[in-house]
C-alpha cells in the first residue's frame, strides 16, 4: 500500500473530527423538550460548547491512546525516551487556542444571558412607585399568630402587595419583552416541601402552576422557611427562592403541556419529594381554569379549602409525590389553613 502523505492525513483527520463533533453537538439527545423562549437560546449555547468539547475530547484522548501504544516500552529496551523538554511555539499555540475559545464562549454567554433577561431582573415597568427593597409588611395569619419562621407575606398576596414585590435577582424581561408589563404575575412560595402558587389578581391559590401559552409570565419567588430553588427543566430556568429576599423569573412558555416543577436546592429530608407541575394551557383553557377556581375558592371557607388541599391530590400543595409522607412530615390541615388568605381578603383582591 502506498504511504499517505502526512499533510493529507492531517487534513482528513481534521475534516472527520469536525464533522463528528458537529454531528454529536447537535444530536446528543441530552436536553429535554424545549418549552420556553429561553430554552432554544440555552440549548444553542450548550450545543456550540458540545461541538468544541467533542473536538477537543477526540483530539486529546486520541493523542493519549496513540502515544500510549506508539511509545510503549518494547521488551528489552531499557533506554530513555527522546530528550525533548519543551517547544515554545507549540506551547504558545496551546495556550492561545483555548484562550480564544473561552473568550468566544464568554462573549456568547453574555449575549445569551442578556437575551434571556438575565440583565434585568425585577423590571416591572407598570409600577409607578418606588418600593423599599426587601422589607415587606407581614400578613398576619388568621389567628393573629405569625407562622413559624416566615418573613414574607405568605399566600395572601394582594395586587398592591404584588406590585410591591420587586425581585432583585433572577431573570427579568428578555429581549422580546422589554418595556412591557407581564401578562400574568404569580407569587410563588417555597416551603418544606411544597410550592404554593398565588394569583394576586384573582386570589387563587394552588399547588400547581397554571399559565397560558405564549404569554409573558412573571413569577415572584420567595421562601417561607429555608432556601428552595424553582426549576422547570423544560424551560431551562432556575432561580433560588430565598427567605428574606425577593427573586423572580420571567418567561414565555412556548408549548402547551405539563412539565415538572422541581426543587433544586437541598431543603430537608423530603427535598426529593418537593415536586409539582406547571400546566401550560391555551388561553381559552386558562381562562376557564381561572374562572372555575376563582368561584370555587371565593365560596369556600379557608378551613374547607385547607381540608381539600390535604385530601385532593390535585390541590395538595405538596404534590402527588409526597402524599404518602404528609403525616410523617407534620403537615396538617391547620398548618395549611394558616397559609390561606382569609375570605375577606380574597374578595377584595378579586
Amino acid at each position, binding site marked *: 500500500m502506498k504511504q499517505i502523505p502526512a499533510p493529507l492525513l492531517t487534513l482528513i483527520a481534521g475534516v472527520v473530527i469536525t464533522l463528528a463533533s458537529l454531528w454529536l453537538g447537535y444530536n446528543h439527545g441530552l436536553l429535554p423538550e424545549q418549552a420556553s423562549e429561553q430554552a432554544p437560546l440555552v440549548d444553542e449555547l450548550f450545543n456550540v460548547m458540545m461541538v468544541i468539547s467533542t473536538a477537543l475530547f477526540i483530539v486529546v484522548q486520541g493523542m493519549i491512546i496513540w502515544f500510549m501504544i506508539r511509545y510503549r516500552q518494547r521488551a528489552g529496551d531499557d533506554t530513555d525516551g527522546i530528550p525533548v523538554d519543551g517547544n515554545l511555539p507549540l506551547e504558545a499555540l496551546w495556550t492561545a487556542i483555548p484562550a480564544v475559545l473561552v473568550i468566544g464562549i464568554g462573549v456568547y454567554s453574555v449575549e445569551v444571558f442578556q437575551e434571556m433577561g438575565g440583565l434585568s431582573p425585577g423590571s416591572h415597568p407598570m409600577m409607578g412607585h418606588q418600593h423599599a427593597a426587601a422589607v415587606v409588611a407581614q400578613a398576619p395569619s388568621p389567628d393573629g399568630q405569625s407562622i413559624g419562621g416566615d418573613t414574607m407575606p405568605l399566600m395572601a398576596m394582594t395586587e398592591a402587595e404584588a406590585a410591591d414585590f420587586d425581585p432583585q435577582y433572577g431573570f427579568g424581561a428578555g429581549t422580546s419583552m422589554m418595556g412591557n408589563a407581564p401578562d400574568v404575575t404569580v407569587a410563588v412560595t417555597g416551603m418544606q416541601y411544597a410550592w404554593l402558587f398565588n394569583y394576586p389578581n384573582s386570589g387563587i391559590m394552588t399547588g400547581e402552576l397554571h399559565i397560558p401559552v405564549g404569554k409573558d409570565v412573571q413569577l415572584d419567588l420567595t421562601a417561607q422557611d429555608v432556601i428552595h430553588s424553582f426549576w422547570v427543566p423544560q424551560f431551562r430556568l432556575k432561580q433560588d427562592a430565598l427567605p428574606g*429576599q425577593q427573586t423572580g423569573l420571567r418567561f414565555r412558555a412556548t408549548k402547551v403541556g405539563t412539565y415538572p416543577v422541581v426543587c433544586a436546592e437541598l431543603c430537608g429530608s423530603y427535598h426529593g419529594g418537593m415536586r409539582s407541575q406547571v400546566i401550560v394551557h391555551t388561553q381559552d383553557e386558562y381562562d376557564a381554569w381561572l374562572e372555575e377556581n376563582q368561584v370555587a375558592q371565593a365560596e369556600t371557607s379557608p378551613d374547607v379549602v385547607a381540608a381539600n388541599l390535604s385530601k385532593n391530590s390535585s390541590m395538595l400543595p405538596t404534590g402527588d409525590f409526597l402524599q404518602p409522607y404528609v403525616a410523617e412530615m407534620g403537615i396538617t390541615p391547620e398548618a395549611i389553613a394558616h397559609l390561606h388568605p382569609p375570605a375577606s381578603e380574597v374578595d377584595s383582591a378579586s
Partner: protein
Amino acid sequence: MAQAQVPVETGVIATPAHVHEPWKWYDYFTFNIDHKVIGIQYLVLAFVFYLIGGLMAVAMRTELATADPDFISPALYNAFLTNHGTIMIFFWVVPAAIGGFGNFLVPLMVGARDMAFPKLNAIAFWLNPPAGALLLGSFFFGGAQSGWTSYPPLSAITANTAQSMWILALVLVGSSSILGSVNFLITIFFMKVPSMRWDQLPLYCWSMVATSVLALVSTPVLAAGLTLLLFDINFGTSFFKPEEGGNVVIYQHLFWFYSHPAVYLMILPIFGVMSEVIPVHARKPIFGYKAIAYSSLAICLLGLFVWVHHMFTSGTPPWMRLFFTISTLIVAVPTGVKIFSWVATLWGGKIRYTGAMLFAVGLLSMFVLGGLSGVTLGAAPFDVHVHDTYYVVAHFHYVLFGGSVFGLYAGIYHWFPKITGRMMNETWARVHFVLTFIGTNITFLPMHQLGMHGMPRRVAMYDPQFEALNKLCTFGAFVLAFSILPFLFNVIWSWSKGPKASGNPWNALTLEWTTDSPPIVENWEVLPVVTHGPYDYGMNVGLNGQVEPVEEAIAPHSS
C-alpha cells in the same frame, strides 16, 4: 544501560553516631515529629476515612437504585450525603494529597532533613483525629444533614447538635491546614539545599507552593463563616437569620470564597504528583517545566476569583453572574496548558505500564472530560439549567474521583517503595486500575444525562422516569466499591511480604530517590548536591549514545 539513573550507594560512609534507630510500629501512633512518620499517619488515617466515606456512597447508591426512599430513611440519606462529601474532601483528598504526600515528600524533594517546624507539623496532624471523631460522633445525634455546603437557614434548623459538631470538626481540620501550609512554604523557601536552583525544584513542590498560598488566604474565611453559623445555632446571634435582619446569601459567599479554592487544594497537589509520575515512567523530561510551574501559580491566583460560579442561581446580581462566568472560563487556559504538557511528555517516551503510570494516564483521560464539562458549567446561562443537578455531580466526580483519587492512587503506587521499602504487585495494580476505570465511567457518565434531563442532586427519592439510568450508576458504584479490594489486598500484602525495594527502584532523578527505602531518620547521612534538573531523562546521552557520568554528582557522597 543507557537509562538515566542514580548510582546506588554502597556504605561508603560510616554511620554517624547520631543516626537514629528506625521507627517501631508503635511510633506511628504517637506524637512523633519526623515528617515521614507524620506523612504516613496522614495517609493511613485519610485512607481509613476514604473507606468510611465510600461505604456511605454505597449506601446512598443502593438507596437510589429505586425511585422510592426504601433502603434508608431520608434523614439518614441526607446525613450520608453531607458526611460523604465532607469526609471525601476534608478527611481524604486534602489530608492525603497535602498532609500525606506533602509531609513525606517535600523535605525529601528539596533536600531537607525535616519540615521547618516539626512540632507544629505534629500538632497539625493531631488536630485531625479529634476532628474525625467529632464528625463520626455526630451520627449519635442524627448527623449533620444540610449538605457539605451547610447553607443556612437549613443548617441552622436541622440537627443542631450534629451540625455544631460538624462545624467544630471543620474548624479543626481548617486550622490543621493553615499550620501545614505555613510549614510547607517556609520549608520550600528556606530549607531547599543551596545547590538546587529554583528551576530545579520538583514540580510537586511548586504545586505545594501554590496550594499552601491558597490555603493560607482562603481557609480563614471559611473558619469565619462557620463560626458565625455556630453562633447563630447556639448563641442566639442572627447573622444568617432573615427574620431578624440576617442575610442567607452572605454565608454562601463566605463558604465559597474558601470552598472553591478548596477544589484547587484538592487538585493542585495531584497535578504535582502527575508531573512527578509521568516523566519517570515515560522516561522523558517533563514537557514545559516552566509552563507547568507557572500555570500552578496562575490557577492559584485565578482560583481566588471564581467562587460565585457556585451561586449563579442564588441571590446573585447580573453583573456578578457575568463577571464570574468570564473569570471561571479563563481558568480553563492554565489547566489546559498542564493537560497538553503531560500529553506531550508522553510523546516520544518509553512508557512503562506500571500501576502508577496507568493511574496517571487514567487521570489525564478522566480529567479532560471533567474539565470540559467544567467549562460548560462556567457559562452562566447553561449553568442555570444544570446547577444543583446530577450534571454537577457527574462533573465533580470526574475531576475529584477521576482526577484527585486517581492521582492519589498513582502517587501511592509510585512512592510506596520509598515509603515502605517494599514493592507493590504490578499485576494486582493493573486489575485495580481496570476495575476502577470501568467503574468510574459506569457510575458517573450517565449522571450527565440524568442532570440535564431534570434530576436534581441530593435527593433520596426521585421521578421514576430516571430509574433505569440510576440503576446503571448504582451498578457502577458497586464495581467501584469492589475495585478497592485488589488495592487493599495489594497494599497489605506488599507492606508485609512484598519484595524489598532498592533506594531507587524506578531510576528516578528527584532527590527522594537518593536515600534508602524507607529513608533513614533525618533522611540522609550527608545532604545531596544537585547538579541537574529533576526530569533530565535521556538528556545526558553523548555522541556515542552513552550516558555521561553526570548523575553521580547527585549522589550523597559527592560533595
